[in-house]
């Protein structure tokens, strides 16, 4: 960008899969020359007794580019809910992460991200008396997905 030139706002559609996000879809926009913010919602679309749901907001900042691979750093605030055979758990989590983005076409890119996830338990409901368990305090969350820039 040249000095005095105003950056054109972007609207980005994102979708993919993450360990804690499940299959997610969302929208993002730029909030500066290097920063983007995304809002995503995810589900594993399961009709069994194992169900997962997530809601996340993340901010990503571009760091540098190596051989056309953009290296980014981000922070994600995530709400996730998991139901299995024994429990229903609801948690809030904070995840710092590194992400890589590769442009496939002018408006289409593929990305991956990975980072530790710090959980804070919000609520638990016991369904039976068959097991003792609890969400991990620190987990590893990675995700893989696509982004499409509308304009």
């Amino acid at each position, binding site marked *: 960008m040249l000095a005095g030139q105003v950056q054109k706002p972007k609207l980005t559609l994102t979708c993919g*899969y993450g*360990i*804690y996000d499940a299959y997610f879809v969302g929208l993002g926009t730029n909030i500066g020359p290097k920063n983007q913010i995304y809002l995503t919602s995810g589900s594993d679309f399961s009709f069994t007794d194992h169900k997962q749901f997530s809601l996340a907001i993340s901010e990503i900042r571009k760091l540098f580019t190596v051989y056309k691979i953009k290296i980014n750093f981000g922070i994600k605030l995530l709400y*996730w809910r*998991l139901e*299995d055979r*024994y*429990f229903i*758990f609801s948690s809030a989590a904070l995840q710092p992460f590194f992400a890589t983005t590769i442009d496939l076409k002018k408006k289409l890119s593929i990305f991956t991200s990975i980072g530790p996830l710090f959980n804070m*338990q919000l609520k*638990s409901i*016991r369904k039976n*008396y*068959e*097991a*003792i*368990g*609890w*969400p*991990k305090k620190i*987990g*590893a969350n*990675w995700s*893989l997905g696509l982004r499409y820039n509308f304009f």
Partner: protein
Amino acid sequence: MKFHKFSNLTFFIITLLTSGCEKIEYFDKGYIIPHATQALAHAASGDYKFPGQTIEAVNFGFRSFDGIEVDIQTSKNYTLWLSHDNVVYNCEGKDLGKFISTEDNTITDIFNKDSTFYYVKLDSVFQIMSEKWPEKYISLDIKRPYQLIPFSSYNSIADEIKSLVEKYELSGHVLIESSSTYLLKRLNDPANGIQTYYFCLGDFDKGVAEAKLNDLTGISFKINSYDELNGSLIELLHSSGLKIQVFYANEPADIVDLNVIGVDFMQTDNLDFYTILESNN
């Protein structure tokens, strides 16, 4: 055809990568042999007959129940004293400062004319227990100092407790309740036989998870709070190799129900505890 191969490959990669990423930790089974519920006089014997956590209360509690529960504070010298409050008061009720900031000689000097207000060292209680009631139990509610203290301070507290247990040969008869897993893990030592209970305010599964994660003896559980105890939960707890001590068990209905479902230890202020159980039987 290309899309099919791509989607199959993507699904395979996702399945492979997700197979080791468990979000929930489930704990292995173990087993303990349940024993009859033991009654512990809360705060030695509360304020019913004697001021709580005095020598008279301690003696009465040991005489009347299977054991006692006392609250422990730490002085500046890392001596362990009996007190529910983390503040030292003089005989006139004046605040002399926090226990953790007060020297032992200041605490020792507090003694009113009627001998009804003074502080007792844990050392003295262990001596009484060792001489008169070595078969009884004592549960120590180790209070957090309500200010940040370094881990070396927790180490000193743990070492003092282990030293006293060894000195008075009370292995297997001392229970520790605390919300500090660091302190409880420091006290976990098969040689000294100290039982460690994670303090939880009614969230059963959270408490049990902390106990299993840190390899503790069990949980110290506040009844009539969040989760309701029942026979199935106690059976699940015991089949996982954990014990439970409950507190605030004062109502006759609670005492009867908790005895039926088989909690291991019950802290109570109710001096009619045994009469209630007998009349129910």
